[in-house]
């Protein structure tokens, strides 16, 4: 005769088991793991190196019209210096750095956070369709732990990807800011953690109600790309029309990207950095609370 289940573990038990289940699917599948490394390389190569905005201003990209009388060598030299200075000036005023690649590579980090959390959200649909969610719900694991483990696995995955992007970006020639300190990397992970917790709670709240892939996919595509481009991830917001700037000003990705730039490639403005962290922190707390409460209510129907 069997005994009553004698292991009344804490209310948080199972969180690591469920998180690890998600992560295992990723790191134990060589193809997926490989693709998750390749993907940022391709994006950085395409966007960062193809859109070489800095090169527009270098002397080789255009020919100066011939003047009459022709310029003397010192004059040409002077003009060349003038344009080089102009380039630095324009790039610095637009992007706050002279290197567009560095600017864009950091934008990739926010991009990764958005897409990794989105795909992790989709795994809830599979768990529901394949019955695993019901199975887990019939065990003593608490509802909150089931949701937390999803959020946590998405967050850990995004943070790993962010680290990878930083390493790759350095390999491709990322230029650090003047007062960069290796400890700033920890700050990057901190802001990634906050934004990923917020985003994945949001996506899970959207997907948990669905047994089909199509509906949440459509909703997410509707959210994701506008969120991506109505932010400063690839281009500074100050050149955007007013209405778009307004959207970008509320977009948490703008603040995430700015924080990472402040930490890695800009001359760190600590007031701005504090503002970024506060905004993303509040976003994470509010959205995660709403997302988790909605999911929890759905699971306790």
């Amino acid at each position, binding site marked *: 005769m069997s005994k009553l*289940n004698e*292991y009344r*573990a804490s209310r948080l*038990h199972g969180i690591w088991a469920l998180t690890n*289940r998600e992560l*295992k699917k990723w790191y134990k599948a060589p193809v997926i793991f490989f693709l998750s490394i390749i993907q940022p390389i391709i994006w950085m190569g395409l966007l960062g190196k193809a859109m070489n905005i800095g090169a527009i201003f270098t002397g080789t990209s255009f020919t100066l019209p011939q003047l009459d009388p022709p310029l003397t060598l010192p004059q040409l030299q002077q003009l060349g210096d003038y344009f080089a200075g102009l380039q630095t000036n324009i790039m610095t005023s637009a992007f706050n750095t002279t290197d567009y690649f560095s600017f864009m590579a950091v934008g990739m980090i926010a991009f990764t956070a958005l897409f990794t959390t989105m795909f992790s959200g989709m795994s809830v649909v599979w768990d529901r369709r*394949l019955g695993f969610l019901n*199975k887990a719900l019939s*065990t*003593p694991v608490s509802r909150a732990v089931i949701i937390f483990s999803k959020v946590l696995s998405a967050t850990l995955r995004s943070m790993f990807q962010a680290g990878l992007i930083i390493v790759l970006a350095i390999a491709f020639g990322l230029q650090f800011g003047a007062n960069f300190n290796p400890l700033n990397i920890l700050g990057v992970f901190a802001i990634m953690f906050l934004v990923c917790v917020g985003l994945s709670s949001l996506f899970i709240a959207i997907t948990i109600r669905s047994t089909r892939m199509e509906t949440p996919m459509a909703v997410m595509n509707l959210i994701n790309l506008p969120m991506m481009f109505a932010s400063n991830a690839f281009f500074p917001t100050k050149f955007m029309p007013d209405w778009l700037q307004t959207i970008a000003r509320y977009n948490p990705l703008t603040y995430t990207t700015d924080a990472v730039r402040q930490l890695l490639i800009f001359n760190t403005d600590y007031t701005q950095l504090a503002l970024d962290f506060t905004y993303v922190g509040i976003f994470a707390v509010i959205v995660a609370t709403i997302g988790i409460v909605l999911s929890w209510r759905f699971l306790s129907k």
Partner: protein
Amino acid sequence: MSEEVIKAEGLTKVFNKNLTAVDHVNFSVKQGEIFGFLGPNGAGKTTTINMLITILKPTEGKASVLGFDIAKQDYNVRNVIGLVPQEYTADEDLTGLENILLCADLYGIPRHIAKERAMDLLKLVELTDFKDKKVQIYSGGMRRRLELACGLINRPKVLFLDEPTLGLDVQTRAATWDYIKKLKKEYGMTLFMTTHYLEEADALCDRVAIIDHGKILVVGTPEDLKHSLGGDIITLRIKEDPDVSELIRTVEHVKEVKNEDGSYRIKAEYGEVTAPFIIETLRRKGYTVTKLSMTEPTLNEVYLEYTGKSMRDAEESREAFRAQRITMRRARGG
């Protein structure tokens, strides 16, 4: 502990305020028995299970498992039950052993005890040789056995089986029944199962409740249910058109006659003796019997009697369900 392991009183679930999936059902399951819910898809079987395993909250009524209220003491209920779901929930990317250990973690069982139990269970369901293989390569029967093992990792007092042999071929199904019996013998728990296979209910269940449209129509042992029909079923056809129900009814031992589109379904005691009398009676009046068959009652007859329809409709929707599941698995693998 009470003799009644599961007790449901007026248990009701209404979805979206208008779809009554389970409609005021009352039943109780005794210690150590295998209790089966038999009915077609959509009858409310899975909804009932989901309420008992505390995944769904009842709209009305109450139920208890081992004395714990399913709505108020759900945490206690979850600790004493095991579930073998309809679906294959094992993770395809993990090995068999990893899947069982994951289940163990969900119950908070310490790793060393979990490993020991997992090895015992794997041996019992004969998956020891495959324990380190990814579930991807498992056959349907193997996956089912793995689900059984997962459901037992916490040594549940009550095991819930939702359509335990859905989508399995005939031999694998019979083999799975043997595993279920073996596990029950080994661990001595109470089993609550749903099925729409009559043979399955007949082969496994101590008592069966026939459920349709959310209502329990009858409860009893398969034997009692068959006997309650009151004898054998004779089915016959005649060459001529007119309805001869009344004439057949005059034959001794005939209890009931139903004309189903020219095919007469006759309930009679001592079928093998009564059948010749029926033929004789009809012949005397100038009718010719073209076809005659006789069956001793099976659960199918019981089912037909109470629901007014054959299980065949349910079978068709099962095929559709299976096709969908296969598509889903492909989609996931790709």
